[in-house]
């Protein structure tokens, strides 16, 4: 039973799918991390993911070119992110609730469009695996790490990129200042609204790309509610990862590995209820959120709209 899981082939399979399946979590969590660091909580990630997944899939299906699909997802994500910025930054809506609105909109809209344009489940070829030169030829590791879709590589590449953006650039400082002490940043001439518009729009793009990574790189299908809660997990992973890109990476890998493990348990027909394995990451997230020393790092102005002359 359990021994079946410990064969090299199965373990390799778990690692391979763990790395692969972390992709959507990575995009969405990194985008949400940037947004939250600037002080905006976007609970609508799930809805934007679904719209991105649909847009990417639709255009890939029509044109046969996944790059055009990806471009569509980026455009849709930017538009939804911008709309979200208008709602949260300019109109100062309660972010915990407006996000539910964005979620419901994306859930309903993507299903509506799917039913009107497809009606039944179709598949596309999407971004297939690309074996990297040299690195891909390393025995064992080459297969596990360097034989993935381009969208998988880029998700991992994004981790150091976001780290540099946040920790080594003026923009990163502005983002964190907007989230920690917007009044002081404003006094120093940083336009809080401009920073937040940028981060929320970027967050929209990354959420949308996260959805597209499912529909045109990992699963290559679209159906209603394709993401089934991944967007909400991504929001939690931001807290789990302590608002750092490396934390986001760790959290994404943990969730995806557990997912991979449970699908292998099912494939091998091991009579362990997979539901408990699936429950584990959520329980773990709650526990992690409750561990006292971690929570001091939440951006001080998170969910607080900026009003000049307050605070």
């Amino acid at each position, binding site marked *: 039973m359990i021994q079946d899981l410990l064969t090299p082939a199965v373990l390799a399979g778990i690692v391979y799918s763990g790395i692969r399946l972390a992709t959507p979590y990575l995009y969405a969590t990194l985008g949400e991390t940037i947004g939250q660091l600037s002080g905006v*909580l976007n*609970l609508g990630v799930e*809805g934007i993911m679904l719209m991105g997944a649909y847009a990417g899939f639709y255009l890939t299906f029509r044109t046969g070119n996944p790059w055009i699909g990806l471009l569509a997802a980026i455009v849709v994500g930017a538009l939804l992110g911008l709309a979200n910025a208008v*709602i949260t930054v300019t*109109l*100062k*809506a*309660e972010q*915990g*609730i*407006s996000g*539910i*609105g*964005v*979620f*419901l*909109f*994306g*859930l*309903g*809209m993507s*299903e*509506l469009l799917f*039913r*009107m344009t497809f009606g039944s489940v179709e598949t596309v070829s999407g971004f297939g695996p690309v074996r990297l030169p040299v690195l891909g030829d390393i025995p064992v590791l080459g297969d596990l790490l360097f034989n993935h879709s381009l969208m998988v590589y880029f998700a991992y590449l994004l981790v150091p990129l976001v780290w540099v953006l946040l920790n080594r650039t003026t923009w990163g400082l502005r983002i964190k200042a907007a989230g920690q002490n917007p009044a002081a940043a404003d006094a120093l001439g940083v336009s809080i609204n401009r920073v937040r518009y940028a981060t929320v729009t970027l967050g929209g793009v990354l959420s949308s790309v996260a959805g597209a990574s499912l529909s045109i790189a990992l699963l290559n299908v679209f159906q*209603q*509610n394709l993401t*089934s*809660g991944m967007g*909400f*997990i991504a*929001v*939690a992973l931001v*807290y789990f990862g302590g608002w750092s890109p490396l934390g986001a990476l760790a959290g994404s890998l943990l969730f995806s590995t557990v997912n991979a493990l449970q699908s292998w348990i099912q494939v091998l027909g091991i009579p362990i*209820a997979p*539901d*408990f394995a*699936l*429950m584990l990451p*959520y*329980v773990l*997230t*709650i526990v992690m*959120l*409750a561990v*006292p020393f971690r*929570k001091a790092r*939440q951006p001080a102005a998170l969910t607080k709209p900026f009003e000049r002359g307050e605070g």
Partner: protein
Amino acid sequence: MAGIRVRMKSRLLSPSSLAVLTPLAAVVAALLVGALLLILLRVSPAEAYAAMFEGAFGSTNSIADTLVKATPLLLVAVGICISFRGGMLNIGGEGQLILGALAATAAILYLPDLPSWALIPLGLGLGFLAGALWGAVPGLLKARLQVNEILTTIMMNAIAVQALNFLLRGPMMDPEQALGGSFIPQTARFTIAADLPRLIPTRLHAGFLLAIIVAILAWVLLWRTTIGFRIRAVGLNPFASRRAGIRVNRYGVMAMVLSGALCGLAGAVTVMGVNHRMFTDGSAAGFTGSAGFNGIVAALFGQLHPLGAIPASIFFGGLIVGANAMQRAVQIPSSMITALNGLLVIFVVSSDIWRRRMVQRQQKAEAARALALAGAEPAPP
């Protein structure tokens, strides 16, 4: 004349009438967006909306169906009113609803010989308790460890779905399913004794009346008791409440527990009044129909007032039933209504800025008037 017009304008634009006008304006706006969408999909909006209205309110049966759909929405919405008023953003309605339904299901499956008068209160009571328990966890975590309740309630939703899937594919599965080899993840049909009584010869069941009573009780609790006053005070200003000697944590947890309990009750009522068995398609919405989220929409629409939640829930119940009728009549998927619900939420919370600005302006004007008055009077010796 001019004076009257000014007075009328100021009354129309007072914060309290805006509270009623903005949701209505949001509905009109969402329906207009919907109409635009329908035109893009080459369907006549008039025809589609007529089919919707007819499907929701056109006959005794359709009105009954609307009220049946409104029932869980109303219970969840009232729960959301209590938690939001207490400063707790409970996004966990879905999970609490599932847990409530599971608890009622367990009682009914394992005590099939109880008579109706015992089984129905037991099922509803256990649903209430299970929801309360599921709400208590995020409430306590927030009160004791300052853990963000939005996240924990969302996590608790996911955990509830896994528990549901486990129980219905395993211990609670209909034994006949296992014998027949079809393995559909659902329980056996409940004993008739557990069915909520029907009100009129339609699908309308007593759960709707129960929900109305609960809404009235919640209004009494929030606006006519000390506990309710404290819950609202904590939600409005926790710092001032603490200064005034209110135990902020206790009332926050209480709001969350009550909210979870009502969502749990919604689950028990749904399973005992409508489905008469528990089932799953693997996702939360498969059983709940997203009532845990749509209840938030209804609560916001009713201005977070338990009595306002009654017409709001009936309206959204009608939207759901009407959307299905529209799907049949003009082949527009009913998911359009989910999208419009989302837009409604966005419109309502985004337009709140005008009301807040108005309140601020009035407060400033009053402060200025008070200052002027104080300045006009001789300083006390």
